[in-house]
């Protein structure tokens, strides 16, 4: 019943700015369980989201009815599989704000999307003395490839620092982004601080100097309307599994002019036009970058995730999370001395809330909360340079999504109060 209403998303909206969370929740079979005797409260959405029934069914249906290798088969199943796979590409191209389908490349995840750019565009365009600009709040996925490339090419890696409030510190930006800048690679939304960065403004500045801009939108795409053409970037990377889709699917958006000039990535089947022993010509876009059999089933099921999110409306998703983040801040303030990282203005951040307790280690927080049925993340969140800036070895992070509500936040806060009594420190 609930998943039926999803097909016709309007009925999921209780008003212009909120979701009917109870109905949404019912679409996620995994959420209906107890952990250690408590109702499961899943607050690890910045790491990976849960999947609605429509996505799980799409995956099953694909294997039951459609499965075949794509693109070259001359039988019905191969045609069906190819159609479904390519339909998802069209859908992604529309979902991200209307780009060309040839500009959407399927990868295994955000990490591979960024590595693809580093290994192809980066390899050919970064030279000794060139400057690569990143930010202090990058996830290792948008950091390690550039550190390695800079080392290899004897290029210079510069970073935009953060303010104590968790925003990018743009006071010295004209010394950081300069005519020497060849690449600006930055996150749209921090997975630790929640900060939403002014990508458009920085992309425009980098473009003035002729640099190329890559945005890591892995955290923003699932949680707010993201329109790639208005971001004005050259590359964008994100993952399906953080936005209700299956694991193992990533997306790389690249501007056609750049993709056309880039060498291919995985060499093998699918990515060639003609092969001779002494001469090979590459396939056209986007196939040039999709060597080998892709993750067809998961890509096909991702289509259902996009449909689900569109039915909810991305602005509604954003409004819901913004409101719930505000509620979480309010409730967490009841815990004296609990330190919350990142901006406090809910309009300038997403729903990933990192916090530390002065006396209880994040791993103990996570273990205790798990015993109360609450899943959060604890650790360095693949952002070790940022942790050093924050002066923390680790933080606990609760991150919200469409199926979380006030009751989930209440369960979190009550468990944290109980935790302080339990550890007695």
């Amino acid at each position, binding site marked *: 019943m609930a998943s039926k209403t999803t097909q016709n998303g309007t009925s999921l909206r209780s008003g212009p700015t909120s979701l009917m969370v109870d109905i949404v929740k019912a679409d996620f079979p995994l959420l209906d369980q107890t952990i*250690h*005797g408590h109702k499961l409260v899943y607050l690890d959405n910045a790491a990976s989201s849960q999947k609605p029934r429509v996505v799980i069914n799409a995956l099953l249906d694909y294997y039951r009815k459609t499965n075949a290798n794509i693109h070259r088969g001359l039988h019905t199943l191969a045609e069906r599989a190819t159609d479904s796979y390519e339909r998802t590409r069209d859908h992604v191209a529309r979902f991200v704000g209307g780009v060309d389908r040839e500009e959407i490349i399927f990868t295994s995840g955000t990490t591979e999307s960024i590595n693809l750019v580093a290994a192809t565009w980066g390899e050919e365009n970064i030279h000794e003395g060139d400057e690569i600009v990143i930010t202090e709040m990058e996830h290792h996925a948008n950091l390690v490839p550039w550190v390695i490339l800079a080392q290899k090419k004897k290029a210079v890696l510069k970073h935009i620092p953060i303010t104590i409030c968790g925003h990018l510190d743009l006071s010295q930006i004209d010394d950081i982004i300069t005519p020497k800048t060849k690449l600006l690679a930055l996150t749209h939304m921090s997975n630790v601080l929640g900060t939403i960065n002014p990508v458009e403004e920085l992309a425009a500045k980098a473009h003035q100097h002729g640099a190329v801009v890559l945005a890591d939108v892995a955290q923003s795409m699932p949680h707010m309307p993201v329109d790639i053409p208005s971001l004005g970037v050259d590359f964008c990377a994100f993952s399906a599994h953080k936005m209700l889709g299956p694991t193992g699917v990533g997306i790389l958006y690249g501007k056609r002019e750049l993709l056309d000039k880039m060498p291919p990535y995985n060499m093998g089947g699918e990515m060639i036009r003609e092969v001779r022993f002494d001469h090979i010509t590459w396939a056209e876009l986007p196939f040039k970058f999709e060597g080998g059999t892709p993750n067809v089933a998961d890509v096909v099921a991702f289509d259902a995730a996009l449909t689900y999110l569109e039915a909810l409306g991305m602005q509604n998703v954003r409004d819901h999370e913004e409101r719930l983040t505000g509620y979480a801040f309010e409730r967490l303030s009841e815990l004296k001395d609990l330190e919350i990282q990142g901006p406090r203005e809910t309009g300038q951040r997403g729903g990933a809330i990192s916090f530390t307790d002065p006396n*209880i*280690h*994040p*791993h*103990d927080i996570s*273990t*205790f909360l798990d*015993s*109360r049925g609450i899943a959060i993340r*604890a*650790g*360095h969140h693949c952002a070790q340079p940022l*942790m050093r800036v924050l002066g*923390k*070895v*680790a933080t606990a992070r609760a991150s919200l999504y469409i199926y979380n509500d006030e009751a989930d936040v209440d369960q979190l806060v009550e468990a944290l109060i109980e935790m302080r009594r*339990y*550890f*007695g*420190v």
Partner: protein
Amino acid sequence: MNESLDEMYRDIILDHYRSPRGKKPLEKTDIASEGHNPSCGDEIDVELQVDDDTVKDVHVNCHGCAISVASGSMLAEIVKGKTLAEAFRIAELVKKILKGEETEIPEDLGDLDALKGVRQFPVRIKCALLSWVTLMEGLKDYKSGQRGGKSSISTDDDKD
């Protein structure tokens, strides 16, 4: 109340965590070793004052979770008064206990029994091991004559 949680955070562990032993700095430091656990950021300093091959006093300074702090505190309590060889053997025994290779715990090391509950939480075993592998590293360097310097180990290096 969750049973496996209480199994890990036993009263003895929580007691050591709330009031860790070995906080007082030593008069004289003969063995100094630092350890860290990169996956969770725990850091520990283990220092020994040695007199005639016997541990005269122990100082442990640990920044970490309840398990690593409690384990370090137990170390401070247990190792004091032991010969260096005994201290090394106890550290080896703790490793075996945590890895499930040994279940018998000698009477005089009773508090160590509380660490057994950690075995149900595989990701936390490293936390309980940290102080002990740090101690072993210090003892090894001391024995091989590398005295005066500070030994250093990461739990990621401790593969055996």
